[in-house]
């Protein structure tokens, strides 16, 4: 039904008022407005015909195709899973910094401790003092001068005469007893060449037929480990013999 079949609206004086026909209600209705203008409603698609809006939509349609949009959506989803400087990350970083701040990086305290250690192993003459034993190994050690070498005599020598009688293997030494910590002993058989009385020396079981022979006027030099007491016995083969002994 169109407006030709209905009466138009009139104002207070019976004159026609501004109005429009409402096709849904099939009647004329007063035209309303506000702020000095009447209400206007555009039909769908009419305003979209504006040239500017048309161009914008065309550009947007070129760049925002379905594939591009899907890529953008995927990237956004990945970014959503990341923890960018959230409180958790910042807390972890804070803990690390606190740990590092507790360390003593070559500060004065550390350097003082090192200085003390170095001074403790350095003598006033600039020679390193080694207190630990050298490790076992195959490294060759060059010439070494050892002070206080125990293999060298450390006290005055002792000299004396000793009489050896047949049938008794007597201990040989120069003084009243075996010299303590002796490093060497010399024995001379004082028998004359004309007598040719030999003697034998060695361990306590030497006899007139067993032991190392020392000919008349011969001298033997024996070396000892000063830390080990080593008695030496001697016995003549036939007759009484005197020996001259030097201990050091």
């Amino acid at each position, binding site marked *: 039904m169109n407006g030709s079949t209905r009466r138009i609206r009139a104002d207070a004086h019976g004159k026609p008022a501004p109005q429009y026909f409402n096709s849904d209600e099939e009647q004329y209705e007063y035209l309303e407005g506000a702020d000095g203008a009447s209400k206007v409603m555009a039909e769908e698609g009419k305003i979209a015909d504006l040239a500017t809006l048309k161009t914008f939509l065309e550009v947007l349609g070129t760049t925002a195709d379905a594939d591009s949009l899907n890529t953008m959506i995927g990237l956004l989803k990945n970014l959503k899973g990341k923890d960018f400087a959230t409180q958790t990350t910042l807390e972890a970083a804070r803990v690390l910094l606190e740990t590092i701040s507790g360390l003593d990086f070559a500060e004065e305290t550390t350097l003082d401790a090192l200085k003390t250690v170095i001074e403790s192993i350095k003598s006033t003459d600039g020679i390193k003092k080694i207190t630990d034993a050298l490790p076992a190994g195959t490294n060759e050690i060059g010439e070494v001068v050892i002070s206080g070498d125990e293999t060298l005599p450390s006290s005055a020598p002792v000299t*004396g*005469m*000793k*009489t050896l*009688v047949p*049938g*008794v*293997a*007597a*201990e040989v*030494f*120069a*003084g*009243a*007893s*075996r010299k303590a910590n002796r490093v060497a002993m010399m024995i001379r058989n004082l028998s004359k060449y004309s007598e040719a009385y030999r003697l034998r020396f060695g*361990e*306590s*079981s*030497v006899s007139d037929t067993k032991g190392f022979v020392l000919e008349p006027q011969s001298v033997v030099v024996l070396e000892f480990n000063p830390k080990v007491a080593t*008695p030496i*016995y001697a*016995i003549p083969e036939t007759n009484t013999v005197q020996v001259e002994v030097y201990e050091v």
Partner: protein
Amino acid sequence: MKKTITAQEVSKSSDALEQLKRTASVQIDFSGEGVGLLAETSVGGGEEEALKYAPVFEKDLRENYKELFPQPELEEPKEMIEEVGEKK
């Protein structure tokens, strides 16, 4: 002077080598003579060998340390009495 002889005790059942290596010690102390000398030696064998060697050891000590022992005073020779009168 005091002599002390100590023989190493070795049982009969001991090893033969141990028997062979046994020793006896001889100690001589001269303090009884007013000499501060204590000497000690050892001999291969037992008490018998030690007893045989002890006097030899003592003699050697007296010789080697003779400056420690008082020397007997030598008697001065008596002056010859000239019997001049008799000769004359």
